[in-house]
């Protein structure tokens, strides 16, 4: 029984996020490990966990990190702007913190959740509502034009 407890369960993305959506819809917070480098340095691939809450009742704004569905994939990226769609709906323009180009347009109904906390492997938590998180996010967004070089330096010293 002990061996079974320590196994790693590999779950297809769609199935995994189906359960995440279900929990979020039930008003629960969900914690999972972030995969990929697109949210580096705020979320490191395979290391940092994100705590996501339902976006229901939240007024999403630039700087918020949202979980949404885009072209069939679930993505965790940061809102960098708002844009009005042809039908008048206000959509969210997003970009990964670790990306220097390539933005996605997230429609309000494609958004499932918003990041509320980052948890490091040591268990240290960083609240996304904290002033330090907001300040770091603000600075990082402002550095978009020089992000390429910031990332090059950071990847050497912070993995």
């Amino acid at each position: 029984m002990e061996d079974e407890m320590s196994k790693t369960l590999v779950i297809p993305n769609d199935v995994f996020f189906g359960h995440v959506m279900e929990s979020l819809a039930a008003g629960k917070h969900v914690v999972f490990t972030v995969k990929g480098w697109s949210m580096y340095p705020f979320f490191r691939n395979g290391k940092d966990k994100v705590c996501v809450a339902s976006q229901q009742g939240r007024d999403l704004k630039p700087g918020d990190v949202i979980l949404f569905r885009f072209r069939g994939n679930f993505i965790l990226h940061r809102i960098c702007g708002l844009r009005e769609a042809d039908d008048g709906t206000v959509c969210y323009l997003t970009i990964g913190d670790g990306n220097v180009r390539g933005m996605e347009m997230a429609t309000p109904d494609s958004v499932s959740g918003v990041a509320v906390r980052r948890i490091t492997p040591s268990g240290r938590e960083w609240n996304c509502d904290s002033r330090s998180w907001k300040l770091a996010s603000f600075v990082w967004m402002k550095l978009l034009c020089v992000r390429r070089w910031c990332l090059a330096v950071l990847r050497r010293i912070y993995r």
Partner: protein
Amino acid sequence: MRISSKYKVRDMAGQHVVIIQGRNGEDMTRIISLNETSLYLWNGMYGRDFEVSDVCDSLVSGYGIDRTLAEKDARAWCDKLKECGLLAE
């Protein structure tokens, strides 16, 4: 002892799993997969108070195994539930 009502078994990619509730919510990085026997015991014990002897009885009646072995397995199962924090005592 009693299995905490906040835990539910889910079917995830053909596996019967229980997702651990951490202090930050459902922790999808800590999932317990139940095998057929564990699921049988879970379903039998869920929603009621039980003792190791009840689990043992369930194993003996459900699988027709020797009582000594059933007692050992029942204790191991209960210990695991406790270790994983799935019990509401």
